[in-house]
């Protein structure tokens, strides 16, 4: 059986500045297969969010091509947007709307038929434990509640492909556990393709079938966790990540104290 690549990019690039000296994403070749959970890892500023924005048709690439479910992100951006759900890293919310009103608005933006929408909003609010607060203004929600609401908003049109940028970073352990289980269910039972970015290596390790590591805009490793550890000759994903992206050398960690101690 052949596995269909639903997200496919070749030489996808996004450059900024004069002469393109800032390479946010540089020649990204990537394939994400239908039904898999793919994790994109990378240090801050490595190009994860830019990649997600490119693949969602939010910003235009400088070079290369990419398709999402066969739709070209450059010329069929509306089709791409219809079949993807996005949980952005630092998204805005309408503080002056209630949770219910916000989901109603998001549903209308994605053309969810009214007869389905009300029921779906209720179901999602119940799933995320927000049903009791459905009529409260979002400004009164905790950051965890807001994150849950945004995940619900990403699911409101039941898209086959989900992009989740740091889905559990602001959640408490219980909510984080629920979201992780939801991601597993969405992938295993509902057959969704999930593209996830996270700094939390255990979360990625637990949920993702394959991972990619991006640094300075370039994809420097792709494979399962085991394959990446084997490639780098390390024993853990954390060690593999540091080996690939660089880190502080241990004997430099307390160097800042040495001069002070010497002078005193």
């Amino acid at each position, binding site marked *: 059986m052949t596995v269909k690549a639903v997200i496919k990019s070749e030489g996808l690039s996004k450059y900024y500045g004069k002469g393109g000296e800032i390479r946010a994403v540089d020649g990204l070749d990537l394939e994400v297969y239908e039904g898999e959970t793919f994790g994109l890892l990378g240090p801050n500023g490595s190009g994860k969010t830019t990649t997600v924005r490119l693949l969602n*048709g939010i910003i235009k690439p400088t070079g290369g091509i990419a398709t999402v479910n066969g739709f070209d992100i450059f010329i069929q951006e509306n089709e791409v947007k219809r079949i993807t759900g996005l949980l952005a890293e630092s998204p*805005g919310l309408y503080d*002056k*709307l209630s949770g219910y009103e916000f989901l109603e608005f998001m549903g209308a*933006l994605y053309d969810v038929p009214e007869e389905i929408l009300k029921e779906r909003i209720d179901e999602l609010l119940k799933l995320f434990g927000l049903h009791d607060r459905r009529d409260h203004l979002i400004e009164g929600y905790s950051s965890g509640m807001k994150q849950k609401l945004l995940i619900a908003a990403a699911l409101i049109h039941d898209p086959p492909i989900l992009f989740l940028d740091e889905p559990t970073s602001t959640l408490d352990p219980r909510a984080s556990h629920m979201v992780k289980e939801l991601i597993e269910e969405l992938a295993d039972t509902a057959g969704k393709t999930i593209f996830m970015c996270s700094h939390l290596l255990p979360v990625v390790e637990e949920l993702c079938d394959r991972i990619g590591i991006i640094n300075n805009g370039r994809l420097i490793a792709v494979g399962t966790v085991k394959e990446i550890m084997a490639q780098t000759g390390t024993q853990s994903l954390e060690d593999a990540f540091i080996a690939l992206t660089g880190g502080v050398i241990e004997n430099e960690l307390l160097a800042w104290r040495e001069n002070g101690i010497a002078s005193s």
Partner: protein
Amino acid sequence: MELPAPKWLVVAKNEYRVYTSRIRGIRPYFPYLAIGLLAVYVLFIAPAVIGLFIDDLLVFFLSQVAIAMVQIILFMIFVYFTIFPITNTLKDTQTELLELFLAAPIKPSDVLLGEFLGQMPFYAIAVTVIAGLFTAILAPLGLDVVQMAVIIIIFAVTFFSAQWIGTVIAALLRTRLGKTARGRDIGKALALVMALPMIALMYSMMGGSLLETLANPGTSGMVQAVLGWLPSSWGAEVIVGFASNLGNISAVGLETLTRFGGLVVFFVASLWLGLKAANRAYSLEPTTFIASRAMPDGAFYKIIRYLGGGGSFGTLLVSVFKNYGRRLENISKIAYVVGLLILMNIFLGDPEHPQYMVLEVAPLIFSVLAVFVVGEVTLRGKEGLFIYRKAPSGVGRLVKARLLHGLLVLVPITVTITAVRTILIPSATLISVLTNIGIIVLIVAANVVLALGLSLLNPAFTAKSGNFMVNVMIVPQLGFVILIISGSNWGLYVPLIWFVGIVFLYLEARKLRNIE
């Protein structure tokens, strides 16, 4: 199956919901309530109020200054309708919501149109209030129904054009400025100073100098010629034309058609151009990669460090200055208050009593400036205060640093303005200049103490907080009350205001240790 609603309607409905969130309880009835109240206003209240001045107003409408004056009034309202959405956006420039729209299958032009239409009902209320006033003035003249209808349409088209232009500019600025901290700071700075030209026009009307100037046929002709190029004026000429040709629309037929047609064409053209610009107004492409960098300390900071006694307190004081001065928003607040004072002197000053502006009005304005400057102490949130609370003797050092900072910012400004203003008084002597400066510096210093005390007693942890506005109002009002109590006797006023300031500062120091 039902067709999905147009996307601009979805966005408009959402905008309307956001704007009416405070009145969610009565939201379903709000349109009926608003229409009912406006009907009462247009049919009864406006005619009753206008009836009190109707004779003067009718004389005015038939005078030679009418066209120029109505042009200016409409121009002011036009600019206000344009500026309002811009300043609202600049005060709190956020681009986070853009990602929601850009990730959804919706055209930027639909978002822009939706934002415009969602806010339109509130602008429509203002248009009705203004049009109601004008129709109340003109109705007794005997205008026919067609003329009345044309006037109402003129108001609607003129001001909705202005709102649309403001909405487009606001969206463009939001995208341009909202992505960087520097851009957001520039936005907040612009939001405040943009109001100054309008205030200048308003003061010139209040001071009466505008009417006097327009009484000169040459000047009013020039104003008409200049403003005549602007679409806000095209309606003015039709309105005044109607007032001179009651019930006879054919007498001004061609002119009406040209002006009115021009206005409609302008509205349609601006709508089209705005929708074309929408792609630029909704974008998450970075606008700059140049990060703001701190320069090495120059002579100014060295002097401040020296004035702070050097050492760790000197460093602390310099840090307070840097954090304050590197925000354009703070500088624009100073420019705004100083600008306001200059405009008051130009347009509202009484040549018979020049000292009144220097010694009675200026201190009240400076007290507002004192709140703007030292009130900043809490505006960046509680965390900033907790840094001081955590440090040894932190609260005392915070108060001392902020007091010194407030004085070092305000005293040079007040000395300069007082000196210049007093020197401009023909009878000024060196003694009067020095006396005025001495009194003002003592008052301003007391206001700094008072403003710091109040700002920490009633802290505003965000610029949007109502507490900030309360503090901005309380300090000058307290100053005014003390001025009345002291009977404008400076020997009594200065010690009294210092006493109140010190009491506030003492209470604040106690409260600051307990803020949680």
